[in-house]
């Protein structure tokens, strides 16, 4: 399509894409900018350059505690969601259980229902059953939110695999557990890996469930930031936020390098 698109349209398209990207990325760039400011106040463009806010957060008990909570949580959630999601995706893919369509709906429902509705329900049920919310409640809540991502990425990978592999393995003498171990699980691996990174990212960044289940002793990094934003933010918030953006970029690049992000975005 050499001359098929008028030049004016090409220029307008270019401008449109650039402006959209600026719009989409501006808040992230601004956060990173503020974080290196010298002044006490949040300002963009930043005044001067210093890493004092980074050293401030590294000595702040509140931030370090929240970071530790978030990290612990994200690792546990990733572990659980990946293991549970693997079993779920394999059964959904095999389609042997009666009511598989219903089961698929069940596993993916946390994706469709607004998180706030689930969060408030969890808070109410937990309080009614176990009393004050705890780390475990948050762990369970995040596992529910992350599970559908693992299921989806794994299903996407399984959908591309040869549907006859398991049968072929059976004709070659592989028993049920051997087929699962040597044939099915290796096919799942790329999807499980991508799902695990998504799960980690979701748990590490999640704020809705964490906000409903927050107690003075149960503060994740996003909630610590939220608390600061509600009152008096200083550039240390920006420094933490920048680090979190960095973690996200890293995760996206890892997912892409491992498996190609396009497979998991519906495009």
């Amino acid at each position, binding site marked *: 399509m050499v001359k098929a698109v008028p030049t004016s349209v090409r220029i307008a*398209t270019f401008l449109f894409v650039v402006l959209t990207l600026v719009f*989409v990325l501006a808040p992230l760039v601004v956060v990173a900018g503020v974080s290196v400011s010298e002044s006490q106040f949040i300002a963009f463009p930043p005044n001067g350059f210093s890493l004092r806010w980074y050293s401030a957060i590294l000595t702040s008990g509140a931030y370090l505690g929240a970071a530790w909570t978030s990290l612990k949580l994200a690792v546990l959630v990733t572990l659980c969601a990946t293991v549970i999601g693997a079993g779920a995706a394999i059964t*959904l893919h095999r*389609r042997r*259980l009666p009511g598989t369509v219903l089961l698929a709906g069940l596993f993916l429902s946390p994706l469709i229902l607004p998180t706030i509705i689930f969060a408030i329900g969890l808070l*109410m*049920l937990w309080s009614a059953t176990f009393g004050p919310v705890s780390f475990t409640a948050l762990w*369970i809540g995040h596992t*529910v939110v992350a599970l559908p991502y693992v299921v989806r990425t794994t299903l996407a990978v399984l959908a591309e695999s040869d549907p006859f592999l398991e049968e072929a393995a059976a004709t070659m003498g592989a028993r049920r557990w051997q087929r699962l171990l040597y044939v099915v699980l290796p096919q799942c691996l790329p999807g499980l890996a991508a799902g695990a990174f998504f799960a980690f990212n979701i748990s590490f960044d999640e704020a809705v469930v964490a906000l409903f289940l927050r107690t003075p002793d149960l503060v994740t990094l996003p909630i610590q930031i939220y608390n600061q934003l509600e009152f008096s933010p200083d550039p240390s918030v920006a420094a933490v*936020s920048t680090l979190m953006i960095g973690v996200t970029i890293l995760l996206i690049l890892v997912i892409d390098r491992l498996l190609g992000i396009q497979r998991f975005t519906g495009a």
Partner: protein
Amino acid sequence: MSLSTNTGSVGTPLLPPKGVSARVLGGIAEDATLSAPGVFLIILAFILPIGQMLLLSIEGASGGLTTEHFTRFLGDSYYLGIVWRTLRLSLLITVIAAVIGFPLAYVMAHVGPRLRLWLIILVILPLMTSVVVRTFGWMVLLGRGGLIPFTLWKLGLVNRNFTLMQTESAIVIGMVQVLLPFMTLSVLGVVMKIDRRLEEAARTMGASFTATLRTVVLPLAMPGIVAGSLLVFTLSVSSFITPSLLGGVRLPVVAGSIYEAATKTLEWNFAAAQSVILLVGVFLVLLPYLKLTGRRHG
């Protein structure tokens, strides 16, 4: 915070066609065992909490069943105002996201694969960063002395103390940025599957570039736009972190009101009733969405 476009990215089948995998290899017990942990988790930690919420919404102060929490909400013009604001803003957000998202997806579908990959990464980056971080960025940009009011002041359009914070515009700007990826990826999934030769064929039949866009691409992309819009709308009506941080206490939305009742004033029954109303609303919107994607999943 959630990359859920794939809930229904139209076209990608979720489950394999029936009967593709072995029938005799049997293993119902094996599959039941494999899926049991997930089923338990979803039932105990997802379905049950929602059931508890439904129960609380009709529980009276002294036990017994009541609809008082619903009548309190629906009978108060203050709360109806909140509903109206939520719907109005969500609609606006959806329309803006569609107006930006469709052309963006079209461009992304037509560039080379390398550039497309980078565009996808740039578009989903905000989606994968924490909502509090993104919102913080907007607070800096839109607040008093922030880049945008400052620029407007320099241009002589507003006075020095101008701020966009605590305005509906701030909510819309912040939400569009968050939700644009859902729209873009939804549309992209559909546009990528449109046979490129259809456009070329239209051109050979005398349609101009814009006429082709209007008569060929747009109608074929409609399922993606509709799916994306429903998704953006439901996510928008149920968000509260961005609206409450950018809009402040004077511009509450439904989800914010739920959060308020659940954690600040501790009126759980009332919070539950509001959640049910939100749930019903979302369901009414999502039903056609699920039908749309369900049909394609066969």
